[in-house]
């Protein structure tokens, strides 16, 4: 027995007209904005926006540029690339936005919206299928890890935004090589990416490499190739040279970002000495770690669908430039595998990291950088599927989000920020300081993150930290010279310079009283009229 229901199309034109009369990009923009605001509100309500220790550091860098004992562009530092901090500068000037971390949320949120829109455009460029583009935007935009990270003052969203912008225009150039403007725009966004995160450096290098590959087979095109590479490189690579120059001029070493004691490489050395860098000089482990991290961020089902889509795409001869597209979109994978192999970065993830390690959750957010790749190829598979398969794929995507909802798939980025190694410590000293601070300069090793400047409500212009020359250097020898408060944590720079040095310690106790003691943190306050 069968029933048949016939629905005339007369109602459909009204629905389809509604959508077609408005550009899809605008609809995606609106939906992405609503998602961003909702997610940010939620994470703000559970006090998770500044959960990452790095979140506060990014906020503080921006704040110090305009509000410090020694404000100025030099406060941008020499380890993290400056662009995300520069974007936050006008926002951190508004004190509530700084204290709540929303200054960073706004920057990440805008980046998130741009990514959603341009993912749609990229997929439409590749597939000429609007529905596939919408699916890509949804896969990325509704991902719980993305929704969390876009609410935080971290730099991943900014990098991904420039990555997708540069890639989109670069792919437009590849598909229409007469139009140089696309290459220029791609170069510009590549330049921005190079000043956002070091992944951006790989992006522009690979884009230049693809330019070479595009023309190398035809000898008569070599001069054109040279011209294009120079044109592209002269804008895209400027950021890299600027950063070397910055390192040399401000910090005395063009490779300060990798040689300094604050660099990621230096941090990795302690793990290496403990044998806790599993991917170091092990290509298989590096690939395994980053693959698992990528699928843990996207969800394994969507990852699996994307891999199938990618393989089908690569075998589809209809796409003349498929290898070049693949190279560009795989840049985050290549970069992260290489940096882990070289010991420049580390990821700990419970699925792989041995139980014997001190920490098993760290830097898992790096897997988010593969999300554009995953979203693009999962939606590509969707676009080429028959109607029934589309229905099944849609069901699988929904099932994946259900797995996130029931906790089977973890929101790893949130877990890392709250219980992983990336989480900001919240010692009692912070609350004590918030209640007890009554003005005056505070000597504090900000790199050691002894207490949170954001949460303790100490005005940034009252902090003496390593970036405040000559206040810092002089205070380590004569703590009474400028500071009213001295906060130190076991084995941090202030502790070692003052507490471990008997002469300086004597001076400390001559002019300061110890007003707070815990196992790790000591706080001293200047004796009045002394």
């Amino acid at each position, binding site marked *: 027995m069968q029933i048949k229901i016939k629905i005339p199309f007369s109602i459909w034109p009204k629905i389809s007209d509604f959508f077609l009369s408005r550009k899809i990009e605008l609809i995606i923009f609106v939906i992405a904005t609503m998602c961003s605001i909702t997610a940010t509100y939620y994470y703000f309500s559970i006090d998770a926006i500044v959960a990452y220790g790095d979140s506060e550091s990014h906020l503080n860098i921006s704040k110090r540029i305009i509000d410090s004992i020694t404000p100025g562009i030099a406060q941008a530092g020499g380890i993290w690339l400056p662009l995300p901090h520069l974007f936050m500068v006008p926002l951190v000037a508004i004190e509530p936005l700084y204290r709540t971390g929303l200054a960073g949320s706004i920057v990440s949120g805008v980046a998130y919206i741009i990514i959603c829109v341009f993912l749609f455009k990229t997929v439409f460029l590749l597939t000429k299928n609007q529905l596939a583009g919408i699916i890509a935007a949804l896969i990325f935009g509704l991902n719980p890890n993305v929704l969390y990270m876009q609410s935080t003052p971290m730099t991943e969203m900014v990098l991904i935004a420039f990555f997708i912008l540069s890639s989109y225009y670069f792919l437009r150039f590849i598909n229409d090589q007469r139009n140089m403007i696309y290459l220029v725009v791609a170069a510009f966004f590549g330049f921005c990416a190079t000043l956002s995160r070091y992944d951006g450096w790989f992006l522009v290098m690979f884009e230049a490499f693809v330019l070479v590959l595009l023309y190398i087979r035809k000898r008569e095109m070599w001069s054109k190739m040279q011209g294009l590479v120079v044109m592209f490189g002269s804008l895209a690579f400027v950021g890299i040279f600027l950063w070397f120059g910055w390192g040399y001029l401000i910090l005395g070493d063009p490779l300060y970002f990798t040689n300094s004691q604050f660099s990621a490489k230096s941090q990795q050395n302690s793990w290496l000495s403990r044998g806790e860098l599993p991917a170091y000089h092990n290509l298989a482990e590096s690939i395994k770690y980053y693959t698992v991290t990528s699928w*843990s961020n996207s969800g394994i089902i969507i990852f699996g669908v994307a891999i199938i889509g990618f393989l089908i795409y690569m075998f589809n001869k209809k796409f003349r430039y498929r290898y070049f597209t693949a190279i560009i979109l795989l840049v985050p994978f290549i970069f992260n595998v290489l940096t882990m192999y070289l010991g420049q970065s580390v990821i700990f993830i419970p699925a792989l990291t041995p139980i014997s390690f001190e920490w098993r959750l760290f830097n898992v957010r790096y897997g988010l950088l593969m999300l554009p790749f995953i979203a693009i190829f999962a939606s590509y598979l969707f676009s080429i599927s028959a109607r029934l398969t589309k229905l099944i794929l849609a069901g699988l995507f929904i099932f994946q989000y259900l797995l996130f909802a029931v906790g089977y798939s973890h929101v790893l980025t949130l877990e890392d920020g709250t219980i992983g190694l990336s989480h900001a410590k919240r010692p009692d000293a912070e609350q004590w300081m918030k209640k007890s601070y009554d003005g005056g300069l505070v000597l504090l090793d900000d790199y050691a993150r002894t207490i949170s400047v954001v949460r303790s409500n100490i005005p940034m212009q009252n902090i003496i930290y390593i970036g405040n020359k000559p206040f810092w250097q002089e205070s380590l020898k004569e703590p009474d010279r400028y500071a009213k408060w001295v906060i130190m944590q076991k084995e941090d720079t202030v502790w070692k310079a003052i507490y471990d040095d008997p002469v300086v310690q004597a001076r400390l106790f001559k002019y300061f009283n110890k007003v707070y003691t815990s196992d790790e943190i000591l706080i001293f306050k200047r004796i009045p009229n002394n």
Partner: protein
Amino acid sequence: MFKNFVAIIFLILIGTLLYSLTLRGVLGNPQASAFKNNLDQATKPFELSPERGRYLMTMSLGDFGRYDLTSDLADAAYPDVGIFDGRYYIFFAPGISILALPLYLIGKSIGFAQVGAFSTIAIFAVLNLVVLYKISKNIFKLPILLSLVAPLIFGFSSSGWSYATTLYQHHVTTFFVLSGFYAVWKYSQKAKFSWVWGAYTWLCYGLGMLIDYPNAFLMAPVMIYFFINSFSIQFSVESFKINARLAFIFTSILFILVSAWHGYFNYTNFGDWKKVSGSIVGVKHVRELDLLQISEADKASQVKAAESKKNPVGFFNEYNIPFGFYTVLISTDRGLLFYYPVFIFSFFGIYNLIKKGMTREVGTLLGIIAANVFLYSSWGDPWGGWAFGARYMILVSAVLSLFVGYWLQITRFKLVSRVFIFLTFGFSVAVALLGALTTNAVPPQIEGEYLKMKYNFALNYDFLMSGRSSSFVFNTYLQNRIDLFDYYVVLYWIIITAMLVILISSYYSNSKKNAN
């Protein structure tokens, strides 16, 4: 038609023969007192707790008419036994124990209670051979001879053999999934009385959950296939039509009835229709609390707290996937492809089928594989405890065997493919028979290394060479007449010869067809 009939009879005969000759068992009607340090030792029928627990529930039903266990039976079922409201229950779904009851009672009346109960699973294993044949023949459209390949591969060169001779859920699960799939295919043919196939599918789904709770997920691809074959949307210029077969809805009454009974079972025994036996607190935990010498009130609140935390779904976690995937597929202690390399050729079959164009049937079969691998890779114990091979991959083995048969049909390399299949089949059978004839109590590598024991079929080989068998027939009637190794060789050559004949005949049959 006659040849078809002969092929099915052949499968029934060879399955019955080989499973009977390797059925695990002891003579008589064992009582609970005989379990500890006797029948729960390696090569004995109750060497592992899953079969022990299920059998004891069957005993309780047959001897006392109750689902819960007496304290003697609970002691014998330890540690896979929980306690609720002062009553003892095994942790497993009740379906296998209920299914085994008829043959248990018949066996008991003639002094073969345990053998009778275990034979239930062997029957389902034989039925699986027939279902695989039907799928190969009717859905994959393979010739009769090649349709026999998949049943032989699954039945005798996979862990399916080891678990056809003991009281586990795997063959029953495989039967419900595969026969459900076949039923949906028949239903989709829209012949007269096709609604009967639809009804059967719903029945399989309901009964499947009674057998083992993960079947709710493992059968999902089949149910989606069922749904898709019941509803269709057709677009035309002016409108679109939704066609719905009402049989899909009407026949769901069977599922509702079975599930209602299941819910009633949970409600009367555990106080809540949603509460399953796996979520009650374990006797092990209670005994540990007893050792703490705390007050009864404290003990009660701790038990309640432990129960509220216990969530069967919580055993599945995405973190487990990388290691789980490796364990079930390629590890040296459980890997499907390590134990049974014949399944490697299934990937060629899958590739060719996908290249030809994905059909609903192929998509469903791949979905069954994906669901099974996904689920049990996420499981906190992908080894399946102490087990022989990847027992959680038995359903996957059944589906993969279909693709091996298909590949033999479509490959250009008719002779070479048969040679490779035969060689890998030979190795795989040798391994499978080791497990079927000796023990399933093989530790995972991590435990084996700690206990300084072998942790894969190497352990079974040692058992074979020392004459230790689990086979009821061998132990009861042949032990004094024939060496275990010789017994092994005889069984091995039966199945190898059968496969050799099939491969050679199908080769010549194909050559003749091409010549014509």
